[in-house]
């Protein structure tokens, strides 16, 4: 279990407003959250509630409009964060190995070394033998594995994952979830994992954050007191798992219904 007083990221009253031509969209409002060093944090919430926006702010791809964002880091040559993006994000013009080692290349690692490191993660993700292939020659599931390998290979302090397995079929999803946990347990990197699946959040996370509908803020924080390593085939019948599942499901339902009422008015 991560130690809860060493936060690595702290968000205080963080809001994000998107300015459109003639209107504004308030995507996040007064979001408060601490993320602890080494934890696996899952975020669930109704679609369109600002989960991707939150990750993009953490990744530095988007500026928050107000509030405070503190990211603590000790001096190191590691990159601060790597993101596994929602949907296809591999460069179609690079081979699998060049995609997977892109972060390392940007860090100035020599070709031989970066191919070695990336190749290791690729084979961990079951992609040995596909190094020279181009993304369009792979299935969607394989492409997603490459982008996970790319994120791990660049060895960041913080891993950001935006519904990485959202579009995969059930078998692929289970395999990748297990592979992800295996690598995570070796590295214990702070991981922030957005998902729309309660099941996935409970299988993977140390804590689950439930977000409200847009404008998104933290509705509740749920500790997942399930021991690791987790056995996927048994854990679903664990009484704690079932109780947590129902709790989160009820919270999400509240949000979705309140949203439906709002939009019907």
């Amino acid at each position: 279990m991560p130690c809860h007083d060493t936060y690595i990221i702290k968000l205080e009253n963080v809001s994000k407003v998107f300015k459109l031509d003639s209107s504004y969209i308030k995507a996040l409002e007064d979001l408060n959250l601490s993320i602890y060093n080494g934890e696996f944090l899952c975020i669930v919430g109704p679609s369109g509630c600002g989960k991707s926006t939150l990750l993009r702010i953490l990744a530095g791809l988007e500026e928050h409009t107000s509030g405070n964002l503190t990211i603590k880091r000790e001096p190191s040559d590691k990159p601060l964060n790597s993101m596994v993006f929602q949907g296809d994000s591999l460069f179609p013009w690079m081979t699998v190995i060049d995609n997977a080692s892109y972060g390392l290349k940007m860090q100035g690692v020599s070709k031989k070394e970066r191919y070695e490191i990336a190749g290791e993660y690729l084979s961990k993700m079951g992609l040995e033998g596909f190094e020279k292939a181009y993304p369009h020659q792979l299935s969607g599931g394989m492409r997603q594995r490459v982008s996970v390998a790319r994120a791990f290979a660049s060895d960041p302090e913080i891993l950001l994952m935006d519904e990485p397995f959202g579009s995969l079929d059930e078998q692929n999803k289970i395999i990748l979830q297990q592979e992800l946990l295996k690598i995570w347990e070796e590295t214990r990197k702070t991981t922030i994992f957005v998902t729309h699946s309660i099941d996935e959040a409970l299988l993977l996370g140390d804590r689950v954050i439930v977000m409200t509908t847009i404008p998104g803020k933290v509705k509740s924080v749920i500790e997942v007191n399930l021991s690791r390593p987790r056995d996927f085939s048994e854990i679903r019948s664990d009484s704690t798992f079932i109780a947590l599942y129902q709790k989160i499901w009820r919270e999400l339902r509240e949000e979705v219904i309140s949203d439906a009422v709002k939009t019907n008015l």
Partner: protein
Amino acid sequence: MQNSMIKKLSILSPILILILWEMLSRFHIIDERLFSSPLLILKVMLPLLISGELLFHMWISIKRIILGFLLGAVPGMVLGLSMGLFPFVRSFFQPLVSATFPIPKLALMPLILIIFGLGEVSKLVIIALGVFYLVLINTMSGVLNIEQIYLDVAKNYGAGKKEFYLTVAFPGALPMIFAGFKVAMGTALLLIVAAELSAAKAGIGWMIWRAYDMFDIETMFSALIVMSFLGFIFSYGLDLIEKLVIPWKNTEAE
């Protein structure tokens, strides 16, 4: 089976047309002096081919097309990339490009002759001009239309300006750059004929115009056939280079 039938049809149709053409002119349904006939053309074309005359003119034109093409495509690509990447370069050049692009390049021929004289240079310049704009515009929109997600990935993984240029902007724009090359090649073939009209002493375009002066329909057809052959090899060549340079380009939907 259906496929092979369809293939046979596409070989059959040109043969049928040639036979029909021959018949029509044999039986004087069309004027042989204006439309000639496949056999008459062959009779003129074969000696031209054997004597090397046809190849000589072909070679002259190929040199002009390739040189003129490079002269236009390289600066077009460089400026197109810069305009796509840097808003201040784009703001500066956009009005100039918008104002001058619509001028038909043929209309500039006399001006070019006055400025560059009757020699080789003006022929290259007119081709280069036509190529330049098409490559520039395609390259720029290739860069501007790179999907946001790739820019995000590059930024997230810490790509600097130069790295972004080399690993994302350029390869991402390559398919559009090649689309530009192909359109530009068509224009180059059009312009070579016009360029060789004025003050040339050799070249396939020149052959066509001289045949016109001498009312030598068979030579004219021979030159036209070579012209279409040139069009074919240039577009085939570009396809080949494209396959080498863009091995990742999906043949299925992308």
